[in-house]
């Protein structure tokens, strides 16, 4: 399968939503930079209500009584070829983490990976992560940039309540829980950084294109 973004797949999620997908088998960070710019362009179209990037894809929600879906699809395909990837003007934020807090899976993950806890924490704090997309739950960040050696299948049985602020990894991705909710990802630590506040404008602390670093506040093990 090609992964140069030359074969976008567009599908209708109802009369008034189009999913625009350029994803190949492996997540491509440079395609994602193009997706962010594309989203910004599409938000200015009359009749478009929402544009939300996913992972190497985005969804456009519009009023189908104003904007014909077939015409919009043609417009998306034409506009995409004109969108050139460029590094996002996102912010860089440090997220302080207490690793190995009570209820975390830090020692289990270290054991599973054959690493010392210090080494595991060092590998998790080393990269600058990119906020690829915000979604699923309010303020949840899909972070790209996890060291591939830390990739880990999700837990066989998801936890029903992973606490707000949990710093988690699952598959090849890293994340932070914005609220207490079920998740099958592994918990490495906890942060007090608030990802979401519905009474704040904008409500989400991070947006697609921002970058973050995890910094060690404490290791409890």
């Amino acid at each position, binding site marked *: 399968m090609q992964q140069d973004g030359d074969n976008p797949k567009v599908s*209708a999620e109802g009369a008034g939503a189009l999913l625009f997908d350029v994803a190949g088998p492996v997540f491509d960070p440079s395609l994602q930079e193009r997706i962010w710019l594309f989203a910004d362009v599409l938000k200015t179209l009359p009749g478009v209500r929402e544009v*939300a990037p996913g992972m190497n*894809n985005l969804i456009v929600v519009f009023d189908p009584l104003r904007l014909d879906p077939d015409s919009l699809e043609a417009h998306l395909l034409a506009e995409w070829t004109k969108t050139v990837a460029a590094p996002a003007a996102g912010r860089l934020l440090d997220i302080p983490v207490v690793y190995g807090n009570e209820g975390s899976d830090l020692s289990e993950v270290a054991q599973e990976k054959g690493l010392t806890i210090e080494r595991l924490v060092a590998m998790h704090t080393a990269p600058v992560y990119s906020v690829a997309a915000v*979604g699923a739950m309010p303020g949840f960040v899909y972070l790209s940039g996890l060291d591939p050696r830390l990739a880990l299948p999700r837990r066989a049985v998801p936890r029903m309540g992973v606490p707000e602020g949990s710093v988690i990894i699952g598959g090849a991705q890293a994340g932070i829980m914005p609220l207490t909710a079920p998740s099958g990802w592994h918990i490495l630590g906890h942060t007090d950084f608030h990802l979401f506040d*519905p009474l704040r404008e904008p409500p989400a602390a991070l947006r697609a294109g921002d970058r973050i670093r995890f910094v060690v506040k404490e290791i409890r093990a």
Partner: protein
Amino acid sequence: MIEILTTGAANCVQDLGRFGYLDAGVSRSGAMDAPALELANRLVGNEPNAAAIEVAIFPFRMRFDRAGLVAVTGADLPVTLGGIRYPSWWALPVSAGDILELGLPRRGARAYLAIAGGLIVPPVLGSASTDLKSRWGGLEGRGLRRGDRLEAGFAPAALGDLPAGFGLDPETIGRGGADIGEEVPIRVLPGAEYDVFDQAAVDALEAAAWQVSEDANRQGYRLSGPQLTLRQKLELHSHGIMPGTVQVPPSGQPIIQLAEANTCGGYPKIAHVIEADLWRLGQAPVGSRLRFARVDRRQAVAALRAQRVLIDRAAPFAALARKDAANPELLAALSRRDTNS
């Protein structure tokens, strides 16, 4: 002011939904049967998006502290006021002290109760709708409890001089059709992974009667029916999903994502319920059976436009019944009629 006397925790304040924060992961929320909420508001002279009560647990009882106008739409159920029984899709003048009761639906699952002036709750992210999953919006982000008191806004509309109220014939707004025990017809568009499902799955999508399982709420409905399988294993990246998206997790039993669904997902999508039929899902109780029929984009848009026409036609009629002479909608409608004749 109104006071809630009998309720269940699934009954909550809703409007037409929360828009503009999809890229922050915020679910749309809003009424599961949006046309019914909009028409309840229209009957009492409110803006279409005014805050009203979505009732999914019955019986529901409330008391009015002052005179006003109330409308109940959605499910077909007995509405009792002052010992007299009224049908659904009806607007009624109420007096201080009156108790309104909504009984068990004969058909449908959710009723909408609008009060002239609209309910006053602090908007969260631009909407009055309750997000039960995230615990914000509506009344303190939760379902209604006995003893809750809600304030209604100033009602500019005239209340009419019809002591028995007035109503809409559900047939005229596209609510005729299936009776209890019959299947609910649901039109769908093929999903992005439709072609990756095997022939048996694609056939079963339209051939089977899909039962709404016990696992059904404002987030989504899990359906029971034949197991749907893929021709090949698929690994999808997370992508946006909409209310109406029919996902198939590894169990092979489809889930229809609804008002409070997560905004992103990664399961293969076999279909999407068209917007014009989302209300039918909102009115499909646990145990009812859905029958899917595939349509194309053009038909999906046409169905939505037809629904819009029916709703817009009902509004000036309600204004006329209220004798709402100052209502600009009524004046516009009447002048159109003059021009046409």
